[in-house]
């Protein structure tokens, strides 16, 4: 039998809560962070709402040296990694460097850092461009900086697949552990696009909502759905081979990464197959699933496709479905890891956080049992997390309560 891969620590930077405790509290209170952009003057842009992690400032947590050579996304990643290790009680100095790896996801790289350097390039000349631009903008930089900071030299990598990347990274961390290429892996992802350059790159995307009111802009599965709102943040998780550090007390095991599947859409949605395959990988029947964290695009036809896939696999209203990302926006590479962290907190607390601002479920989404407005108390042993990425990516993770 394959040794289980378990999650023993998490570090969260979310728009509505920095740190997993503050985040969880915000979710249960239905506290949304979607609002007018604060990071730069967005008044001249056709899209002005975002889920901004205003409580996060890298300077509160990192030395000056690190700030000068990193984008905000990397700063968030480093801090989340520190918190995840502390949460898991792992001191990397106590372990062999090649036993520890880092696998993260990034969909866009370090836009903010890159913008500042491009401004120097065109404003002052090439010699004024920071030498750190060579990698600070790059997709792999978060994995690299975490690896350097903690001396983790085991199998590592980065995955780029838009919003599915974070789940794909966590699945790859599991794969590395199963292949004995690492015993403990920091995995997940955090992202930010909140700078003028990052913003203009998104504005042409018709999937982004043009609604000006924060509480009306991101309404997945609602009859008034009009697209999504981008946000920033995500999570880093400590994944390790069960038994690597001896028996873990139940309170130090958030859950097991039980199953995963990824599919790619060519002519039609293959999401139902991704969900079924992930459940089969976990050896879990659809009836044993206690909650689904939906991709929740907010684009009406994509919501309908997801609702159809959920109904196909779980039956009509067969499982509670929720989208706490209605409080944060879609975080791209950070979205899957944050949803996974949320799923693990649901298992820990036996509560399903709500989907907020929904007033009327769209008729073609009526087949799902959406948890709206208020948290729902119920035993949660198995959770499914779904992500879809622009261009046809689907990724599904199944997590279950640790056996003890």
């Amino acid at each position, binding site marked *: 039998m394959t040794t289980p891969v378990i999650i023993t620590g998490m570090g969260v930077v979310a728009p509505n809560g920095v740190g997993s405790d503050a985040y969880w509290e915000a979710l249960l209170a239905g506290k949304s962070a979607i609002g007018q952009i604060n990071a730069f003057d967005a008044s001249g842009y056709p899209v002005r709402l975002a889920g901004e992690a205003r409580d996060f400032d890298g300077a509160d947590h990192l030395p000056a040296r*690190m*700030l000068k050579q990193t984008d905000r996304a990397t700063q968030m990643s480093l801090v989340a990694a520190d918190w995840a290790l502390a949460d898991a009680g792992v001191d990397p100095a106590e372990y062999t460097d090649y036993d520890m790896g880092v696998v993260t996801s990034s969909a866009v790289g370090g836009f903010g850092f890159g913008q500042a350097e491009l401004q120097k390039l065109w404003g002052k000349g090439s*010699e*004024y461009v920071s030498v*750190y631009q*060579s990698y600070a903008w790059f997709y792999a930089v978060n994995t690299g900086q975490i690896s350097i900071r903690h001396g983790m030299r085991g199998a590592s990598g980065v995955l780029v697949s838009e919003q599915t990347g974070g789940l794909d990274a966590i699945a790859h961390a599991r794969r590395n552990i199963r292949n004995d290429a690492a015993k403990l892996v920091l995995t997940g992802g955090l992202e930010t696009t909140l700078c003028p350059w990052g913003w203009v790159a998104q504005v042409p995307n018709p999937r982004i909502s043009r609604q000006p009111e924060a509480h009306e802009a991101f309404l997945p599965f609602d009859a008034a759905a009009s697209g999504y709102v981008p946000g920033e943040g995500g999570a880093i998780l400590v994944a390790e081979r069960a038994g690597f550090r001896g028996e873990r007390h139940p309170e130090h095991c958030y859950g097991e990464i039980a199953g995963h599947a990824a599919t790619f859409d060519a002519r039609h949605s293959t999401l139902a197959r991704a969900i079924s395959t992930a459940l089969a990988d976990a050896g879990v029947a659809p009836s044993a699933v206690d909650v689904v964290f939906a991709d929740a695009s907010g684009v009406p036809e994509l919501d309908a496709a997801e609702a159809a896939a959920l109904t196909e696999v779980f039956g009509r209203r067969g499982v509670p479905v929720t989208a706490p990302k209605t409080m944060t926006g879609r975080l791209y590479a950070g979205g899957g890891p944050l949803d996974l962290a949320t799923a693990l907190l649901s298992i820990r607390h036996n509560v399903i956080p709500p989907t907020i601002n929904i007033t009327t479920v769209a008729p073609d989404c009526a087949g799902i049992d959406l948890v709206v407005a208020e948290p729902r108390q119920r035993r949660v042993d198995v959770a499914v997390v779904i992500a879809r990425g622009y261009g046809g990516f689907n990724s599904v993770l199944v997590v279950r309560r640790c056996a003890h």
Partner: protein
Amino acid sequence: MAAFTLTQLRDTMHDTAGENDGVSFGGDIADTPFEELDFDSLAIMEIAARIKQEFGLVIPDTEIGNLKTPQVMVDFVNSLAV
């Protein structure tokens, strides 16, 4: 031009790289290897770029690896200024 001083180099080090956890360059660092101050080759390239911008003195890329301590770098920059 006036001689390039260790104080000026220290300021440049602050501006370009900044201090790191557990590393300070407030003390006598003249003969402390850059490596011990957590300055890698990229950090030194950043210093060289700043010296070019502020003083118009060009440290050739091929020399950067030889400038192992702040004092060696100060002396080399001053040799360029002659």
